[in-house]
């Protein structure tokens, strides 16, 4: 009896295997014929390492590049920063009150592995892409702003005013929440985020945290770097060196 069962099991295994072999190329061809590349994969996790020693006090180039690349007003078109302008990235000045040491660093969405904004979103608009980038799907966003409350980094902005003349690659609109997308449209084209490219001192190192051979993984292995509010256990993708 058991012998028969084993044979039956073998037969089923082989036929399932054969079926998979027969179907798989068809599916690949289907994908190819429909001109679709593969979806982003969790083998990659995009991240940044920010070297505070190279970040100059008073320099605002990364923020300006972010505003320009994503079509945010950022005080450029509106004649000064309006109180309701979106802010995806900002410079933060820190000072040790005892020692007097000052630091300047860029602050933006930290692209957490366990993002609180995604946890609280009632519509599933806030989501984390397979490659670790935390985004807002504005087709689903109802503008409730729970995510803005939940974010420990104050990274998100709400669009209060009607917008015109958006960047065709970066759709944005009134009534939705938005934040740093790590320039997802550039990453998908194989480019670096605008801030990393614009930094004159190369203080922002962008790369794949999951690839042990990448420059960023090597640096994180060899130099001391911290996550902001690491105590929250969110495992952020943005790390700071010399904080």
């Amino acid at each position, binding site marked *: 009896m058991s012998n028969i069962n084993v044979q039956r099991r073998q037969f089923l295994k082989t036929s399932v295997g054969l079926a998979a072999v027969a179907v798989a190329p068809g599916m690949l061809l289907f994908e190819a014929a429909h001109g679709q590349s593969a979806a982003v994969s969790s083998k990659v996790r995009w991240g940044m390492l920010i070297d505070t020693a190279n970040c100059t006090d008073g320099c605002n180039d990364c923020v300006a590049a972010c505003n320009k690349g994503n079509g945010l007003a950022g005080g450029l078109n509106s004649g000064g920063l309006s109180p309701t302008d979106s802010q995806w990235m900002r410079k933060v000045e820190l000072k040790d009150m005892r020692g007097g040491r000052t630091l300047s660093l860029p602050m933006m969405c930290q692209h957490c592995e366990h993002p609180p904004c995604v946890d609280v979103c009632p519509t599933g608009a806030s989501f984390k892409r397979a490659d670790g980038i935390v985004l807002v799907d504005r087709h689903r966003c109802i503008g409730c702003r729970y995510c803005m409350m939940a974010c420990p980094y104050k990274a998100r902005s709400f669009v209060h005013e009607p917008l015109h003349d958006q960047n065709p690659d970066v759709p944005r*609109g009134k009534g939705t929440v938005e934040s740093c997308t790590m320039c997802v449209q550039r990453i998908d084209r194989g480019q670096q985020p605008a801030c990393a490219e614009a930094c004159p001192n190369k203080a922002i190192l962008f790369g794949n945290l999951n690839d042990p051979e990448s420059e960023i993984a090597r640096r994180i292995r060899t130099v001391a770097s911290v996550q902001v509010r690491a105590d929250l256990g969110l495992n952020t993708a943005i790390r700071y060196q010399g904080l």
Partner: protein
Amino acid sequence: MKAFLFILLLAATPSWAAGSIVPKLDIGKGGQCVEDPQWMRKNHMHLLIRQRDETVRKGIRDGKYSLKNCIECHASLRDDSVIGRDDSFCQGCHRYEAVKIDCFECHSGKRKSAWAQSK
């Protein structure tokens, strides 16, 4: 009853199908569309909604049914836009059918090259 419904359906057939009053559209560059134009008139929204989820959620950006591709071919050669005028490619038809388009509250209705030049 069925026959009555059928007659009603015939009467409700859009007039472009019957070949009478058709909204005159500025189709921009035009050329070979990704699907048959008549089929596209009926189904473009399904293609766009599917493509948008693939792009936003999975990062697939080279699908052929993208809104940007529509705009690239169909934006007017006069003002590089698919909205804004009564005969603009998207707006003209949507106005005729009395269907509101939400796309362009966030998305740019302009051709990318024209947008880049204006910056």
